[in-house]
């Protein structure tokens, strides 16, 4: 039976008098890949950061594995250990090698010893196909390689869910494939993922559910088939049509 890992109710976030998130509700079930799409500036990233409390919501509820996490007294650092996060601009630690980047959370947060941490880190780096680059520093890696290391870093912490914040938006077109490939693999292996992305091909192929967000609200959500071919809301249709057109034309070139 599917069981919800994340449940969000009435989530609100105000920045400088502007309501970025208005009453967002979302449920993410175990093993789901949820893709969040929408125009830029509609609070998708803010929403993702609210989920692991990097941004603290103003009101509403976020439940993680049946525990309300946005209440006083909750250890936020402990909560974040259950989330992995992958950022648009990679944010690898520049003073550490690929291996060091994956190990540091294991040694300094989970308290594993060097050997165990290294073993675990190597396993995750193999998982993303980066085993041949473990001694390289971020400055020596391509964007796609950096992002795969970042995914390994998130995986190493054995998170309940991984949040992807436009993981391919900063990549050259020919490097996008290697990152999407890894994400696809994870989805098939049953990792629970919430992805903000404009990659419609990925959304159509991999997503269990697509959530269309605009203006701080969820306009419509459904499975890819419903969203792409039978959207109920006119705006969803427009947006998907526009963005699919755009990406399809760039793919042909």
């Amino acid at each position: 039976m599917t069981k919800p890992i994340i449940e969000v109710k009435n989530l609100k976030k105000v920045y400088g008098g502007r309501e970025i998130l208005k009453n967002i509700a979302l449920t993410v079930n175990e093993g789901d890949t949820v893709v969040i799409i929408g125009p830029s500036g509609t609070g998708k990233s803010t929403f993702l950061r609210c989920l692991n409390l990097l941004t603290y919501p103003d009101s509403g509820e976020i439940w993680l594995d049946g525990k309300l996490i946005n209440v006083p007294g909750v250890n936020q650092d402990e909560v974040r250990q259950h989330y992995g996060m992958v950022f648009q601009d990679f944010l690898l630690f520049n003073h550490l090698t690929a291996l060091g980047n994956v190990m540091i959370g294991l040694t300094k947060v989970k308290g594993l010893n060097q050997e165990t941490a290294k073993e675990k880190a190597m396993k995750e780096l193999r998982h993303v196909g980066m085993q041949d680059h473990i001694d390289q520093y971020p400055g020596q890696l391509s964007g796609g390689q950096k992002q795969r290391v970042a995914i390994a870093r998130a995986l190493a912490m054995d998170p309940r869910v991984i949040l992807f914040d436009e993981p391919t938006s900063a990549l050259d077109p020919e490097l996008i494939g290697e990152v999407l490939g890894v994400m696809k693999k994870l989805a098939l292996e049953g990792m629970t993922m919430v992805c903000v992305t404009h990659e419609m091909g990925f959304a159509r192929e991999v997503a269990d559910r697509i959530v269309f967000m605009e203006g701080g609200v969820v306009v419509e959500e459904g499975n890819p088939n419903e969203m792409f071919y039978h959207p109920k809301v006119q705006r969803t249709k427009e947006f998907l049509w526009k963005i699919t057109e755009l990406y399809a034309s760039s793919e042909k070139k």
Partner: protein
Amino acid sequence: MIEFVNFFIKYFPDLYQGALITIRITAVGLGLGFVLGLPAALLRVYGGKYFRWLAVAYVELFRGTPVLVQLFVIYFGLPDLGVTFSRLTAAYIALGLNSGAYQAEYFRGAIQAIGSGQMMAARSLGMNRLRAIRYIILPQALRLVIPSWTNEPISLMKASSVAFLIAVPDLMTKGKLVAARTYDPIASYICVAIIYIVMVFIMTGFVQFVEKKVRVPGFEMEELRV
């Protein structure tokens, strides 16, 4: 020329004694400045409102007043309040406090240059703030700061000559004594200048050596060649 060389050789042992004191003041001042400056920078960037104010007040006070005034207040002023220091200790404290204010600004610049993304990535792994600073921010900031920070030991070593004015027997004081004894101020002070510049070169070389040692590929500031 040969006369000057002989002069230099003759008085070098004296000046050398002074140079050792200069090195001591510089080293202690630099160390004290580091111990004060790094926390001040961290408080200014990450601290709450009051800690931030405190850090700003410290930096502005000691950067905004002459180091000589600071030295005199500590050596001649504090005894009125019942706090008396030896000459050397007063020099250590004045130069340390002064250097700390400058070092704080170097460190702040480097910490801010690291960017908030690194902190966010560290926090996303479940690190608390202190650990993120310790394991992610500082290792990068301390590497990044080296080129600009190199100014600090150099300017501090030269500034330490103010200790002459409270009669600490440093290089400057010894130079003055040699000048008085030989009636040859030009030769004396040129000797002093030579010793200062050699010490600065050695220090700069050492810092560059450290910089190379801790270099991380692809991390150094990109050189722009236009």
